[in-house]
């Protein structure tokens, strides 16, 4: 008893101090890197970023003018990717969590291939998208084939996150439902999926965010035409492609590249908050906060 008290009161040892210092410096390093990046973006991009920038057409290969068509193309591509990835991802995750055993052969192989896919460089997805959606399905350089490619890229992360969310449901719910004569489908729809909704939203954001920030997947599929798209079959330049083009191919495009990068970051943050808010609002009252 006395020992316990004295241990608790003893001043922290050198080792504790070192470990704490290491943890804190690691944390501050990460935070610093992020804030440095943000500050840099703000410093270079903020004065360009205004309403006019968002609503004007790009001029002079993007050196002047705004990003209106690029913003529209980006939003369309992301919307298509989400609309495709969410139901497919949810269905696959349900299949994995409900109809395969953990450690079973099917589950092992599927998760292995998903992990490999999640780590595949985006250029590979870009090549696949260009060969399959653009060439084989004949969609050419189009917003549709860009969105489909992004969906493929987002799926592995999305499926893994949703599956983990579904598997987290305690076995008592399943047993309780069975004991009440409630079918598995009802349980899934009314209990398990809502409970996994935050994971689905998080997975969607992670997946789409990763894909949206990648240039290589879109250059070959949605292309780099910077005109306002008039349909989903038109080519449309995404923000990431625009930034890449401005920094690499257009001398004097730095200012607008920074401003576009800022737009992209704001878009990502907004999408993130929206997903969290939505999943909270739709399902928050049904599940507890704990």
């Amino acid at each position, binding site marked *: 008893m006395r020992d316990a008290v004295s241990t608790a009161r003893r001043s922290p040892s050198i080792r504790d101090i070192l470990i704490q210092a290491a943890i804190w410096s690691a944390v501050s390093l990460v935070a610093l890197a992020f804030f440095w990046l943000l500050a840099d973006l703000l410093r270079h991009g903020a004065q360009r970023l205004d309403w006019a920038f968002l609503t004007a057409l790009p001029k002079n290969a993007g050196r002047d003018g705004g990003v209106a068509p690029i913003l529209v193309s980006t939003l369309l591509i992301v919307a298509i990717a989400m609309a495709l990835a969410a139901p497919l991802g949810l269905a696959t995750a349900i299949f994995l969590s409900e109809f395969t055993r953990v450690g079973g052969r099917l589950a092992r192989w599927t998760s292995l291939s998903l992990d490999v896919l999640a780590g595949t460089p985006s250029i590979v997805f870009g090549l696949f998208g260009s060969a399959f959606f653009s060439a084989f399905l004949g969609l050419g350089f189009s917003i549709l084939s860009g969105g489909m490619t992004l969906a493929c890229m987002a799926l592995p992360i999305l499926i893994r996150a949703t599956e983990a969310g579904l598997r987290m449901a305690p076995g008592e719910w399943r047993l*309780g439902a069975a*004991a009440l004569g409630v079918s598995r489908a009802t349980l899934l729809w009314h*209990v398990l999926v809502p409970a996994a909704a935050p994971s689905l939203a998080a997975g969607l954001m992670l997946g789409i965010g990763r894909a949206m920030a990648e240039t290589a997947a879109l250059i070959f599929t949605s292309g780099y035409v910077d005109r306002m798209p008039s349909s989903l079959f038109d080519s449309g330049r995404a923000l990431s492609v625009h930034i890449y083009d401005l920094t690499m191919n257009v001398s004097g495009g730095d200012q607008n590249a920074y401003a576009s990068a800022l737009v992209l970051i704001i878009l990502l943050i907004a999408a993130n908050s929206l997903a969290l808010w939505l999943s909270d609002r739709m399902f928050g009252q049904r599940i507890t906060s704990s």
Partner: protein
Amino acid sequence: MTQADESRGADTHGAYTLKPLVAGPPCCEPKKLIGVEKLSLRYNGVPAFEDVSLDIYRGCVTALIGPSGCGKTSFLSSINRLSDLIPGCEVEGRITVDGENIRNPRADVQALRRRIGMIFQKPNPFPLSIRRNLEMPLKEHGVKIRAELDERVWRALADVGLWDEVKDRLDTPALALSGGQQQRLCIARALALRPDVLLMDEPCSALDPLASAVVEDLIASLRGRYTVVIVTHNLAQARRIANYAGFFWVKERAGALIEFDHCHRIFEAPRHELTAAYVGGRRG
């Protein structure tokens, strides 16, 4: 004032709606509801219990007692065929409800489980609102009309003495309730389906003594209206609420039913010396 309002008014005086019925038909002329004949259950070939035969009487509380691991939970789960869901679990023998063999592969398991509700040791409300916890199974079993849903929700909650505690927060998460309230909600959820039988697996063991007493009173108040089979490690509780008692014991590495009789006989004049030793607190 509608009829529902009237009875609701009566309820605010603090009585369970089932209370008056306790004084109803006594259990002195037992009528068999569930018959179990030579039932054995194995997990991956290892027997959990063997050769159990007993009758469960309509409207009575039957308590199952015995040490840990003698197959009481397994026995309960074979009655509502929850054991079907456990991989590697094989059941052998006959179980009849109202004379009908429920182990018949063509029997409607969903309907069986509506008729035979089960309460688990750990309260297991769904992560939904209090109201939807009750409505979801009701809708599953075809109750769709709003008025009837409301009526059943209200009655079930009133029956477990929970209505006054939760009537202002029916749409808040059920998981925010206390453990004792959650357990009563689970009982209400089963009662809302108007079952004939309630199987209860140590329903009070995760609760504090006060909440446990409330649930115990509730079970006592169900006597006469429902047929209750309760597994409990609390011998005093079994003695207080049960009409019949069965004593399980591990014999030759598998559980077996040693003695089954009127509750007072088990506790006061057991025929088997193992029973006498167990209820006397000398073993187990």
